[in-house]
């Protein structure tokens, strides 16, 4: 999937991204990149600009100026559908799964396997049941039955299924937006494990969070955003928890 020539170039390069809303400058020339099969932490306090950056990457709005290079090609991401077609997907805590539906129905939502009998596309229920369990098992998530309602699962299990779904459908860049903020310690552990599993499968992950402890367990690199600017990018091991926190809050400027 990744040929030798491309292996060293980053998956995502966002170059000099500026975003203004009227008189307000949300992003002031931010450079941001994510490597292949890498977990990149995106850190910054509320209002720092990290959601704006991600919304630009996921097609919710266009940058005022700057360019995006994805998988070696310069791209214009004009809608969330285009972002998804490129292989960029976001997992939001409450918007990942439909709690009233089963795991299988959620897994294939929007991409349902069908058999056309007459003019109507009918769901291939057997395929859904079997493939959901198989695909989740492949990344280490064991479910009892694809017919179990998602609402009965814990928060961590739900996040994991959303991650497993992204892996199965060949997402290239997975964006996790505050994946552990409402979870217990044990549940967070599971999510972090599956994040690493996804990376092992070749996905790149942008991990957005306030929780520096959690992200230090999984991230390869950290990018800190403050007041619409990139404060710095650090490799794991290069920077301590305290220094990172200080950078986020602005007690230290690098």
């Amino acid at each position, binding site marked *: 999937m990744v040929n030798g020539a491309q292996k060293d170039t980053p998956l995502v390069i966002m170059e000099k991204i500026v975003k203004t809303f009227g008189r307000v400058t949300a992003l002031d020339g931010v450079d941001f990149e994510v490597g292949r099969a890498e977990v990149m932490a995106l850190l910054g306090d509320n209002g720092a600009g990290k959601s704006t950056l991600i919304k630009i990457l996921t097609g919710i709005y266009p940058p005022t100026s700057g360019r995006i290079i994805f998988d070696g090609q310069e791209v214009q991401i004009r809608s*969330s*559908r285009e972002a*998804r077609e490129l292989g960029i*997907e*976001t997992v*939001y805590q*409450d*918007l*990942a*799964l*439909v*709690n*009233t*539906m*089963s795991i299988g*129905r*959620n897994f*294939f*939502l*929007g*991409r*349902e396997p*069908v058999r056309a009998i007459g003019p*109507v*596309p*009918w*769901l291939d*229920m*057997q395929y*859904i*049941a*079997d493939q959901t*369990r*198989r695909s989740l*098992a492949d990344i280490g998530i*064991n479910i*009892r*039955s694809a*017919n179990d*309602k998602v609402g009965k699962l814990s928060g961590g299990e739900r996040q994991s299924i959303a991650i497993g779904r992204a892996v199965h459908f060949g997402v290239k860049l997975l964006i996790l937006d505050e994946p552990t903020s409402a979870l217990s310690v044990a549940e967070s552990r599971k999510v972090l494990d599956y994040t690493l599993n996804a990376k092992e499968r070749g996905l790149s992950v942008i991990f957005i969070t306030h929780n520096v402890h959690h992200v230090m367990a999984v991230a390869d690199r950290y990018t800190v955003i403050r007041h619409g600017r990139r404060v710095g990018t650090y490799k794991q091991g290069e920077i301590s928890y305290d220094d990172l926190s200080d950078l986020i809050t602005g007690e230290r400027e690098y």
Partner: protein
Amino acid sequence: MSVTASAGKRTGSWLGDSPILPPFLTFMGTFIVLSLFVPNFGTMRTVSSFISGASINAIVVIGVTLLMIAGEFDLSVGSMMAMGGYIFAMLVLGGQSPVLAVLLALIVTSLLGLLNGILTVTTRIPSFIVTLGTRSIYRAVVWILSGGVMIQTTEKLPVFDTLNGRLDLINNLFAGANFRMATLWALVLGIILQIALTRSQFGNRVFATGGNPGAAVAQGVDIKQIKVICFTITGLLAGWAGVLTFSQFKTVFVATGTGLELTAIASAVVGGTMLTGGVGSIIGGLLGVALVSALRSGVILLGLPSDNFEAIVGVTIVAASILNERIRLRS
């Protein structure tokens, strides 16, 4: 780790992962209680009577239930039913071919439903409010179309019997039975839409649209399209109900269908459909409308003052909904 299907769990019957059992139990419970306390309740005459009484409404309930599962409401179904009845009546009594009359009635009400859908998805106004408005607007159009005059006929056109005549095939089997074609229509349409809801790609997306529209959008589902389709189906079915109403009663007046919207929503809720969307079943809606009709029959047969009708029905609706919820949470 093996991937054989887990013991005992089927992939789900066509009745669906949707909650049929609670409303079914509630209906059977109500029926048994009524049979015990109301003289002659369990007879074919009474049963066929309340089933027939519910059948035309049931057709509207099918659409309303589907729409509620998708997360939206349509309060204009009564007006659309009147519109369908009037267009059919005017054309068929005016000498037009009955096929054309039916087609035009259905096309117009489908367009009215489509308009409800488009208004809802393009403005940010909740469907409850949009259709509260169209309820009045469509009713006004009916008024203008009809000149405020009711249509009544004694002509025995064959089309009336074809569409909603007596179901003598069944009636002859049971003494006192009085079933009509409308019941057959309700059952067939109900079953078809139930299967579509639980077994088609469209149905999967309807559940998602109502259950968590944000998640549905994130997975690439066009929720606007799904909602507009459901609104259009609701219009179509309301129009069909109007056609069947005229076929049976040979009468339609400007106020036809008034109050139908609340009966329909109540039936859907009694049948297990949640007001918040994402959960429900068409068959449940049919059970709900049958239950309310059975209750009305019971109240009449008991000779209770008619003022008590609505109160008793209202209490039962609330009780049935609570019961459904209890059973649902326990499963």
